[in-house]
């Protein structure tokens, strides 16, 4: 069956409502919250700080570490607390999504830690986490050549669309999820995963949609960052 109308009434190129706030974890060096639809991510940055064990240190530049975690009650079926194979993979791709934007040359031997917690989940958690982490890194004053924006592009019932929610992710007749992160200034892709089928000729369209959506996310991130520093 053709997916002719979205479950929540959105247009195919329309993201869910977004909200962002910077400075949500007082004791951290940088922090931010990013909400898209019913998905809420909190990110905190700690560092640059001393890295232990010593053998992991790099005397030429700092190291970025990422830790993504879903709170046990953020989904219907409780997740056992602690890392899982899924959360470790997402931690890795999150790090790779952020790394091209940050410059850690000033911090030899040190580590910059990024912690992402999903407080409430309704699909798109890794992308929301990356959006929050990007703001947290900027808030911490880590040198960055750009912010990082992330959104998932989907293919549901033959239709390419943006920002799947849980209903669309679980769509009975099959659903494709393609999370994309970009450095928006030059539309450089730093995260790309695909889970499901997509026609080769649709990839272009999907990336174009991601690019357009990331510009909208960027405006929300910029506004949240400026709100914190303008008010001061």
């Amino acid at each position, binding site marked *: 069956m053709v997916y002719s109308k979205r479950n929540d009434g959105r247009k195919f190129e329309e993201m869910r409502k977004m909200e962002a706030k910077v400075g949500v*974890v*007082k*004791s*951290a060096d940088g922090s931010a919250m990013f909400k898209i639809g*019913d998905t*809420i991510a*909190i*990110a*905190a940055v*700690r560092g640059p*700080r001393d890295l232990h064990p010593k053998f992991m240190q790099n005397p030429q530049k700092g190291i970025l570490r990422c*830790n993504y*975690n879903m*709170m*046990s*009650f*953020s*989904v*219907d*079926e*409780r997740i056992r*607390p*602690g*890392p899982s194979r899924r959360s470790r993979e997402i931690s890795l791709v999150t790090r790779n999504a952020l790394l091209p934007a940050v410059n850690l040359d000033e911090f030899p031997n040190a580590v910059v*830690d990024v*912690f992402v*917690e999903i*407080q*409430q*989940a*309704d699909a798109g958690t890794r992308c929301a986490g990356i959006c929050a982490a990007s703001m947290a890194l900027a808030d911490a004053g880590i040198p960055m050549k750009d912010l990082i924006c992330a959104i998932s592009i989907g293919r549901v019932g033959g239709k390419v669309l943006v920002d799947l929610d849980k209903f669309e992710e679980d769509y009975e007749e099959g659903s494709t999820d393609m999370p994309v992160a970009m450095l928006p200034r030059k539309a450089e892709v730093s995260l790309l995963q695909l889970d499901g089928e997509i026609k080769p000729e649709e990839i272009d369209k999907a990336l174009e949609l991601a690019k357009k959506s990331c510009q909208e996310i960027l405006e929300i991130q910029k506004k949240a960052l400026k709100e914190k520093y303008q008010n001061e």
Partner: protein
Amino acid sequence: MNNVSKEYLVNSLSKGKREDGRKLDEIRKVQIENNVSKNAEGSARVKLGDTEVIVGVKMEIGTPYPDNLDEGTIIVSAEMLPLSSPNFESGPPSEESIELARVVDRAIRESDALDLKKLCVEKGEKVWMVLIDIYTINDAGNLQDAATLAALAALKNAKMPSFDGEKVDYKKKKGSLPLVELPVECTSIKIKDKILSDVSADEYKHLDARLTIATTEKGEVCAMQKGGEGTLTAEDIKEMVKASLKNGKILRKELK
């Protein structure tokens, strides 16, 4: 580095002042925000000054303990997230986070806060398991009292999922949990010869001994946990119980 030395704290305390200007038995401002995670059966965010904790309650069908075949079960876990403090590390739960969870658990269990018999579905076979998960968001001292308060708030706003004998339907909510008591915990610490309530992060670093005291609405003490490397006298404990009863009333009012 430490921003305050123990010598400085003791010096201020000898003048009857705390480092942040509070009275010795005064707690920080409390804020409770309910339903912060919609897929949880119940959830709450508690802020105690700058200390912040999120607790969620999930429910599952499980088997009862062999010694209580007609009672539901409670499991409390805590994650002291490295997001919330430079002193917490990633990895398996630390001793501190296990203690945090167990002391919250004790207050709920020993005050009989939940009527566990009402959580029995089929005697000896199927009971509701109440899973309470604590996540620290910002550690500015006294996570224990914030965690207990958040757990109670989450239990209070929780809605039971439905169960048809086969499967739990998390979308179809039934009534509230059988919550019959509202225990709260108040932790006091001792620095040299002074007793303080609701400690800040700076004070916590330099404590000699601490005592967490859970009290009930009726003004009874239902759980305690002594911590820290120093010792307490009977006089100290008396003073701490008094402070916990007084401050417990303030915290319980926030729950209602």
